[in-house]
């Protein structure tokens, strides 16, 4: 398969740390506008894969292309973010000493140079966009709260909101519902499905209820490579997936 016409294209990617192969000849293709769920046992290389896509880790071998032509291995985190790839961490990472509103303001797409930031004045369009996101992530009432005071689930949403503000083409979402209540989980699934209408999303998650609710193509990773790929039913009936992951 060619990288052309794909949004994200990984081929033959490997990386090892001190002899430990975290990613082993991994290939993965994501089409524009697609949402994909990634499952796999601990240590299967899910987080390392995200690190490679976002430029935190450089692969030892293999191709990583974004938008068909952009070689991601040649860019660092900030450049890749500006290309249009947003990332949500496993542990919600928001700026705790800023308000909810300021968190979104910082994430908002726009120039990133220090000089423009020094003399930045918020435009009406930006303010409106922030309001819109505040409604989407259900935090309008709490927009003046310090992010530190939000509940765990609210922090997760704020971080998703920050991704939206960044206006990326591709969102990488690492375990968005870990530690959430059932109701929050269901809401989050809804939110992600909404988001996926306009952009591509990769969701890494353990929670099978949640993955089922997302109702998208699933990729199962194991020991750094793809074990199975397809609908959730297809994957969960795969003998090897059952062996390594779901309990034999």
């Amino acid at each position, binding site marked *: 398969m060619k990288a052309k016409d794909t949004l994200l294209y990984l081929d033959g990617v490997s990386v090892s740390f001190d002899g430990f192969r975290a990613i082993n000849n991994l290939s993965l293709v994501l089409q524009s506008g697609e949402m994909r769920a990634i499952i796999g046992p601990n240590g299967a290389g899910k987080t390392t894969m995200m690190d490679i896509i*976002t430029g*935190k880790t450089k692969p030892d071998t293999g191709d990583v292309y974004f938008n068909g032509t952009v070689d991601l291995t040649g860019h*660092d*985190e*900030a*450049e890749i*973010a*500006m290309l249009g790839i*947003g*990332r949500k*961490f496993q542990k919600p*990472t*928001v*700026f*705790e*000493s*800023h*308000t909810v509103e*300021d968190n979104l*303001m*910082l*994430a908002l797409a726009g120039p*990133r*140079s*220090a000089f423009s*930031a*020094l*003399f*930045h004045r918020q435009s009406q369009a930006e303010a409106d966009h922030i309001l819109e996101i505040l409604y989407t992530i259900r935090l309008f009432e709490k927009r*003046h*709260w*310090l992010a*530190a*005071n939000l509940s765990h689930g609210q922090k997760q949403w704020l971080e998703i909101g*920050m991704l939206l503000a*960044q206006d990326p083409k591709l969102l990488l979402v690492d375990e968005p519902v870990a530690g959430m209540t059932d109701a929050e989980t269901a809401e989050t699934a809804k939110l992600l499905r909404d988001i996926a209408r306009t952009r591509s999303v990769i969701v890494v998650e353990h929670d099978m209820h949640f993955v089922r609710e997302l109702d998208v193509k699933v990729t199962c990773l194991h020991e750094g490579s793809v074990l199975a790929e397809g609908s959730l039913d297809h994957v969960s009936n795969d003998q090897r997936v059952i062996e390594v992951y779901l309990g034999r």
Partner: protein
Amino acid sequence: MITQWLFTHVDRRGAFAIALLVAIAFFVPVLNLLVPETSALHVPTYLVSLLGKYLTYALLAVALDLVWGFCGILSLGHGAFFALGGYAMGMYLMRQIGPRGVYANPVLPDFMVFLNWKELPWFWYGFDNFWFAALMVVLVPGILAFGFGWLAFRSRVTGVYLSIITQALTYALLLAFFRNDMGFGGNNGLTDFKDILGFNVQAGTTRSALFAATALFLALAVFLASFIIRSKLGKVLVGVRDAESRMRFLGYRVERYKLFVWTISAMLAGIAGALYVPQVGIINPSEFEPANSIEAVIWVAVGGRGTIIGPILGAVLVNFGKTYFTAAFPEIWLFALGALFILVTLFLPKGILGLYGSWQARRATRAALKDDDAQPPLVKQSSRLVPAPEPQAAE
């Protein structure tokens, strides 16, 4: 108009500090020069210089807090920038001595004549001009900081490693400036100043003017710092302090932001040093001592890092204590300073203002709980940016 403009860029506390500093800049000289010595309100000249010295330290503390408190870069070498600014001013003052030196050489400062130098080294050129020297006061620390920061931030040296190499930086400069053949007066440094801009540095009026200039520069620094912190750039800096990699994944070039604030901070420290030298009458290599830089860190810690007013408070209080103790009980001072380091880190990590801030937040929580069941406090004290304590309602 002006006040309104000021208020859009500075919070209430900052505006109060600026107003207070401007008032001090006016009243202290008045009380020194116009009120007769017999009056109880008279401020003696030695006190003017002493207060002036404290305020230059306060300026250094504000500079340090800009990088440490708001951006998480603990510099153990800010004394180096302070001293470089001081040396630039000292070189100007040396050139002003002219033929009035002991050896009466119209061009060469005494120590060069003493070392048998025949002509002025190239790097002393231009320092007979005040404005050139003033430019160097900010440029020399600025360029050094820029080069150092460019190397360090680009290769992502952070945390204690950065602290240690900043300390090595000032230590290297200390060794260098001790050398006679560096051309900065070696061990003895630069001293015996006569005039500044044609006025006698010893005269009461000059001292008052220097004091007023210091207070005004400090006010300006408070304004500048507030402006930076309240801008989007300032919010990025705090974001870098709290979650550096998050900032990168949002597309910010963290190293450039750090470099910007680091360089600005070094320049402010240089100005502080330049104001310090004419008021104390000497600059020598001991200003590069790593101990000095670390002492500046404790001023910031005592006052409250991550606040703009805290460092001023801390610098003045600690140095007042130092003046008092070293005169009254010289043996006790280092014990007191050492204990201060230990106690502040153990019990007062947010400093005096942090203590006040958390008291305020608690009160806000109680108030909020009264009129609304489960709402955590709505704490946003614009310049503080200290996280409020965990909401009590959760318990």
